[in-house]
């Protein structure tokens, strides 16, 4: 459903992404793994239009969306949950969710949008208990759930998740990964996931791509990548080598 071919991104003189190609099929979870600065966030941002690609093609269900404006890309069905969550801290949880649907807001649709807010609350009951609370008072894990919930409000076909586990306590990391795989199981969501926590990401992903200095150097099923010694050494931690 999501297809990327030869995507290149330059930041001034820096060639951040070099001819990266990947695809994500409907209802798949695909992980992008790699070290800091490998180009993972750049790749997600070039897909969602937040960063402009120098060249290459992105298509969703066969429609080219390369170099569209980010808001157009949201309408096409791609929602980007950025690294660091970026929730609107002074606003209540509920308003944060409503803002996720702002591009399709109209009086006629407001009931439907209210209904979707309730769906997000049923997906993340912890948020429902805090619906009137300001987002800035939530824990890191709750803010991550809110950021994902806000993205769901745009009714995406594909969800781009950037480092959802970053900065969370180990117990919350596990919880977030459980939530992500439930999004696929229960809502049929298609997910492209960027993670430093390669083991956690490959644990829930069907397939993965490994980025090194802006290049895709490996791709395969999660099982294959977990069995690859380069992946084990570089991203899974030496002490856990089998």
């Amino acid at each position, binding site marked *: 459903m999501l297809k990327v*071919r030869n995507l290149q991104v330059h930041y001034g003189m820096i060639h951040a992404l070099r*001819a990266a190609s990947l695809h994500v099929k409907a209802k798949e979870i695909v992980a992008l793994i790699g070290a800091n600065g490998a180009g993972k966030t750049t790749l997600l941002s070039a897909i969602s239009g937040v960063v402009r690609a120098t060249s290459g093609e992105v298509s969703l269900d066969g429609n080219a969306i390369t170099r569209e404006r980010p808001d157009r890309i949201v309408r096409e069905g791609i929602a980007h949950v950025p690294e660091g969550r970026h929730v609107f801290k002074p606003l209540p949880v509920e308003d944060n969710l409503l803002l996720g649907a702002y591009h399709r807001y109209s009086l006629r649709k407001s009931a439907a949008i209210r209904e979707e807010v309730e769906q997000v609350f049923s997906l993340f009951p912890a948020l429902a208990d805090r619906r009137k609370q300001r987002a800035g008072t939530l824990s890191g894990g709750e803010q991550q759930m809110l950021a994902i919930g806000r993205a769901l409000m745009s009714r995406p076909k594909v969800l781009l998740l950037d480092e959802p586990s970053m900065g969370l306590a180990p117990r919350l990391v596990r919880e977030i990964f459980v939530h992500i795989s439930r999004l696929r199981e229960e809502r049929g969501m298609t997910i492209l996931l960027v993670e430093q926590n390669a083991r956690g990401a490959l644990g829930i992903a069907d397939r993965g791509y490994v980025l090194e200095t802006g290049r895709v150097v490996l791709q*395969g099923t999660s099982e294959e990548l977990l069995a690859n*010694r380069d992946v084990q050494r570089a991203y899974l931690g030496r002490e856990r080598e089998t």
Partner: protein
Amino acid sequence: MYWEPDKERLDREELSQLQLERLQATLNRVYAHVPFYRKKFDALGISPEDVGSLSDLSLLPFTAKADLRENYPYGLFAVPMREVVRIHASSGTTGAATVVGYTRNDIRTWSNLVARILTAGGVTKDDVVQIAFGYGLFTGAFGLHYGAERIGASVIPASSGNTARQIQIMRDFKTTALVSTPSYALLVGETLREMGIPTSALSLRYGLFGAEPWSDAMRQEIEGKLGIVATDNYGLSEVIGPGVSGECLERRGLHVNEDHFLIEVIDPERLRPVAPGEVGELVITTLTKEAFPMIRYRTRDLTRLLPGECPCGRTGQRMGRVTGRTDDMLIIKGTNVFPSQIEHVLFEIEGTEPHYQIVIDRKGAMDEVTVLVEAAESIFFDQMRRQKEMVEKIQKRLAQELGISVDVKLVERKTLARSEGKAKRVVDNRKL
């Protein structure tokens, strides 16, 4: 029957996206880890990111057998040795051995690809598979062995040679599938006849043959003598071993495992693609190999791509049987001659056995070719007139097929050496 139905029947568009992703990742890896490729790419001014589509493959340099020899033994490995779990060497039918390696993932991929080919050839977990390839550095035996085990079949690692014992095993262990070279399968068939064992005494149903060129006529001969359905499969150790391609039971050419190998067919002289469907040299690029990736490897095997779809439902491109090797090509009196052409003629003529040898001598400046052919029992050597007619018939047909005249000699049955591995069809006594 499919082993990996979703992969063997992949939609062509999805396949090409997957091939591009895998090609790009392979190029990025070889450029970073194999100095041989980096130097070659740099010399041509190509960087991996210049390959943005599958057709850009033609920008890349070829890799030849000589490159493998020059980098003997480990120069073309793309991973450190501690990640290599298996080492094989090419069987070296022609020339010195070359060394190839496999990571744990490579072994798993390889087993899966062979499992696809075995499944396509009729083998299931209920089969008893007798592997009559030599176990050793050669990839054939181990490749088929692991693939058959992956399916869950009962594997008999009989190895090659000792035909009477092979037949005893075949009968007593109730072997249902034979894996060997086609020439060895013929020898098994003949030995059965000599031992007076009818095929009904065996449980054989399928034969999966490879590692040397053979013809449809030879297939019929083997099927008749062994009472089996025979399929062809193809691979070479420089690329992975068996598992590159194989026939399904429709037997309309060999399905290439295109999600793991990119194939091209080129004119071996001009190094450009041949017209679709024409015979040329097969060139293979690996898409998933970790330890020993190959970029545009010139196999020296001659084949062609087959048009259209196969009723079996597999979507992979099909290649015709390998009809010979570019280095088997004999230049006789200035004409290109392939041993397979001679084999083809002999199979068409009744009263000959499928055993032959081509002997080339040079008298002065002239090449002289003698084709030694075994006569069937029905032709008695006291019937001089019939012998003469037969020789003339073969000579005439060979002259038509090859465009040059050759001598033909009938020899008694079983006088030509039998192979227990790859057959030696050509004796070239010329000092060039």
